[in-house]
């Protein structure tokens, strides 16, 4: 047996701006085992329910993450609406779908850039973020914010987008879609991308299920599961199917995200064509009593929001199970047996968001 060496990966590492730590047990250049460690910046936001009432917690939920902030807010609102059986107006459900899919596009473009950076393709990284910047402009135009949308509230949404605005959103998105196509063709066909990602970080279908993988990590291993199929927001009224790849390697996870980009563009176009006129919110009365699990598909996978109310303004419990937290065991599995040089690429393919995980 070769001599074993333990190499620490993180919590500060050039490939990740956020702190996660892995103890990599190596035999020469091969990773034998990876032991994860998190919690370097755990904020205890769940505990804030003791100080903030259930309306204020919407703002806290939105600040769990700076990339999928809108979907965090939406998930929290859906959990409260589930407990209180609030009937959200249809127009608000469509608007939530449009902003949710914009979040997915900007998150996937951001990830594509980071992924390119992880295997040293710097120009591809810069082009991905250049395209993403144009989407952030649309988000700013429609919500007023580039990072925190502040658009979702319990019982509906805070802002509307008028017909002219929706038309403008669609025409801008068609330009971004065309530019995204040029980008994803490189990820799909470039030889250097393929050589760094094909047959690297394998996760079988059985392993993905038993290890609790979620999101693109799960779907790239051949499992057709996407929480949007539960039918929340306007997804049950739109025509779409989960994007699935079967190879279970880094390339497959990249392809799932590339294809999901186009799916998100299409979902927004469909939502714009079907959106109904009408109110965007309803008045909420009373306090939540009971418990509910809201399951929503974030760009990184399924997030679970649990809320428990006892009839007072403050919830008894607020709990968030984030996709990155669920993807830690599959990550450990994919790292075992890989080359040390592939570790940053494999870690990136779960699209880790430590900000979410350290809620």
């Amino acid at each position, binding site marked *: 047996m070769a001599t074993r060496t333990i190499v620490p990966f993180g919590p500060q590492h050039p490939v990740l701006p956020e702190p996660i730590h892995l103890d990599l047990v190596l035999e020469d250049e091969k990773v034998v085992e990876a*032991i994860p*460690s*998190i*919690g*370097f910046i*755990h904020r*205890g936001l*769940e*505990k*804030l329910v*003791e*100080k903030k009432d259930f309306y204020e917690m919407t703002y806290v939920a939105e600040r769990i993450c700076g990339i999928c902030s809108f979907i965090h807010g939406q998930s929290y609102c*859906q959990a409260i*609406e*589930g407990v209180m*059986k*609030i*009937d*959200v107006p*249809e127009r608000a*459900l469509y608007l939530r779908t449009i902003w949710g899919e914009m979040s997915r596009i900007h998150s996937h473009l951001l990830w594509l850039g980071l992924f390119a950076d992880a295997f040293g393709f710097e120009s591809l990284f810069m082009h991905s973020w250049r395209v993403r910047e144009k989407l952030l402009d649309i988000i700013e135009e429609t919500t007023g914010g580039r990072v925190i949308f502040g658009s979702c509230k319990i019982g509906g949404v805070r802002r509307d987008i008028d017909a002219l605005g929706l038309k403008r959103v669609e025409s801008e998105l068609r330009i971004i879609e065309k530019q995204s196509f040029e980008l994803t063709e490189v990820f799909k066909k470039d030889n250097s991308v393929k050589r760094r990602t094909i047959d690297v970080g394998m996760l079988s279908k059985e392993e993905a*299920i*038993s*290890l*609790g993988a979620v999101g693109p990590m799960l779907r790239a291993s051949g499992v057709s*599961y996407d929480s949007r*199929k*539960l*039918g*929340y927001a306007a997804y*049950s009224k739109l025509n779409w199917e989960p994007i699935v790849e079967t190879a279970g390697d880094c390339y497959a996870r990249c392809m799932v995200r590339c294809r999901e980009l186009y799916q998100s563009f299409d979902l927004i176009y469909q939502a714009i064509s079907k959106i109904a006129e009408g109110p965007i919110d309803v008045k909420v009365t009373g306090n939540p009593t009971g418990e*509910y*699990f809201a*399951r929503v598909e974030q760009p990184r996978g*399924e997030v*679970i929001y*649990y809320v*428990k109310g006892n009839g007072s303004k403050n919830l*008894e*419990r607020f*709990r968030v*199970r984030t996709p990155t*937290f*669920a993807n*830690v*065991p*599959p990550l450990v599995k994919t790292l075992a047996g890989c080359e040390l040089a592939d570790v940053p690429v494999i870690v990136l393919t779960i699209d880790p968001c430590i900000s979410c995980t350290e809620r």
Partner: protein
Amino acid sequence: MIHIEEQPLLVVDKGTLVEKAGQMSSDGWRLVAITCVAKDNYELTYSFDKDYKINNIRVVLPKDNPVLPSITKPYFAAFTYENELQDLFGITVTDLALDFKGTFYKLSVKTPFAPQSQGPVK
């Protein structure tokens, strides 16, 4: 109209938890979350998913000296949730496949979510 899921809940004794989790695993249910509510006692909810249906199993533990068997045998992925229970809530989990012994989270306050915690947020 919002979508509200049916969310069945079965309360079991902690002595039958591992067996029940094993059955869920054999039947193809995916573990999606372990949630703890700490108030007058510890209320632990194990959530599973299969074909877009959620199913919950609940175990209630006393406030003093809470001890729980690990389900990492049928569900290895539970090690993250169970280490979280140890670090944040102070629950002792026995037979954990990957036990960080209180160091999974780097906390300045010991077991901050435990009912008796004197943490910074009150």
